[in-house]
């Protein structure tokens, strides 16, 4: 119980053990044109954790996730206030290297989005754009990434076949491998299993369990059981506000806010 309380306090007051946070989001507001989608979000991401983001549709989970690797920059008319500190430096600050940010903070999307290239070229795409040309090294990276994504055995005999011939679940693992190939520190996942069947879903969940040994993972999910199964902490969003963040068992067993309780007991959303 003492442990539980400590964890809850840490979460509530964003007290991270020294040197253990990789991202600190501070007073983050985001506007799509005039419409505000995120309101003063404060949230820390700990090194090596799986942080789940839950909340009803349209509450801003994807929007929030995309602020963490500056992918919202691609959308016209987006304005952002506040800070996202990555190892203490604001990624929205002046002179920040966007390429380095996106390379080290990777992203997996809701629908598998393999490139219409071969399996090999999909994985080698990232390393190649970052300047790796040596065939041997690329071979190594491809094998390592696919192995880490638990896909190597299934595709090692057809690396040069089109990635579009893979099943949906395989495609999603391919996309994860493609992200791992550029050696990220943090992997953002936006409902990575919502387009997949239950078996593929559990394989991805297993994979996430393995990946957390090396990577920090922030995952959006619609599925509260999934959040409960795979995450260390869960953050609950509602209407663009971060309502509550706590260690996952704490949040689900003893939510502090009424909104959270309503949501997890299925009263709305």
């Amino acid at each position, binding site marked *: 119980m003492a442990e539980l309380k400590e964890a809850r306090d840490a979460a509530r007051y964003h007290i991270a053990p020294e040197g253990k946070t990789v991202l600190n989001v501070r007073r983050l507001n985001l506007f799509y044109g005039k419409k505000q989608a995120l309101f003063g979000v404060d949230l820390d991401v700990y090194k090596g954790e799986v942080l789940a983001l839950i909340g009803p549709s349209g509450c801003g989970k994807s929007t929030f996730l995309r602020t963490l690797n500056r992918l919202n920059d691609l959308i016209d008319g987006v304005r952002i206030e506040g800070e996202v500190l990555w190892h203490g430096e604001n990624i929205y600050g002046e002179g920040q290297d966007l*390429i380095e940010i996106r390379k080290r903070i990777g992203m997996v999307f809701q629908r598998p989005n393999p490139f219409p290239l071969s399996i090999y070229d999909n994985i080698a795409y990232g390393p*190649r*754009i970052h300047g790796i040309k040596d065939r041997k090294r690329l071979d190594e990276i491809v094998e390592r990434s696919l192995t880490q994504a638990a896909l190597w055995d299934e595709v090692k005999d057809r690396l040069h076949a089109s990635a579009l011939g893979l099943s949906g679940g395989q495609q999603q693992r391919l996309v994860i491998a493609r992200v791992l190939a550029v050696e990220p520190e943090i992997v953002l996942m936006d409902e990575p299993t919502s387009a997949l069947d239950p078996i593929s879903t559990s394989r991805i969940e297993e994979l996430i369990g393995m990946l957390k040994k090396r990577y920090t993972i922030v995952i959006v999910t619609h599925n509260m059981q999934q959040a409960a199964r795979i995450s260390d902490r869960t953050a609950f969003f509602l209407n663009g506000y971060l309502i509550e963040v706590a260690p996952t068992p704490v949040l689900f067993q003893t939510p502090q806010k009424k909104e959270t309780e309503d949501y997890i007991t299925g009263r709305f959303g």
Partner: protein
Amino acid sequence: MSLPATRSPELKTNPSHMKFEKLRGTFGYSLTILSVFIILLAVISIYIFVFSKGLSTFFVDKLHLWDFLSGTEWNPTRSEEAGGPVFGVFAFIYGSFVVTFLAAAIAAPIGIGSAIFMTEIAPKWGRKLLQPVVELLVGIPSVVYGFTGLTLLVPFIREHIGGLGFSLLAGVIVLSIMILPTITSISVDTLLTVSPEIKAGSYALGATRWQTIWRLIMRASAPGFVTAVIFGMARAFGEALAVQMVIGNSKRMPTSLLDPGSTITSVITMNMGNTVPGTLENNVLWSLALILLLMSTVFIFAVRLIGQRGRLMS
């Protein structure tokens, strides 16, 4: 013909209306079948007709196929002492291919480049500005292209580059402008099929816009670009009027781009009015038409094949 939809609830239960509906269905069905039949009939008749006419040069008039294809001398009025009329069409085939390939070589990079500009670089104003321009270019009749080429291009070549002005080069330039909109618009359609999700995937890996365009969008669109260029080439190969107006219509084998020449199509249009049906001279033109028909068949099959392979990829 059609009844207002709002009245259908009562009418639907009315048996005579049901019967009418059924009849109308049968009628529509027959009509579509008939249309398909007419199209098939037209295509088959054209093939049969061109084949029978085109082949009679060899089977009735006993011209040697090889002499015909590889001969470089064309002289329908050569005297009997000199050996009689001679029909070597190699110079025209050569002219057609040279003009087509060079026009495609010029128009492909420009067309694909502007397609990328319109879809990727300046999708807002680029498309607004260029889309109408491209559509306009498609709609201009070929005689206008030819006339403009004749008035502006031919004297320009004569004065600034050399030769008579009437030349393969003039044909190449006119054709490249004519096929540019074809290549551009098919390339634009291809580029628009590259999904935003895929592009986002590339940016999320840290790729720059140029890397995304070069390494992903261009590669994903390559089969579509090939299709675009083949369509352009098909158009160039079959274009007669505009080419005929600027190419010089010389029957001799051109030795440089500044020489006048002929293409298969320009020979047909130049000579068809002056020959009597059933004569060798007329049949030879049909043989040339047969070559055109075969070439366009090849183009269509190439496009189909690439389309199929593209589908396998996606």
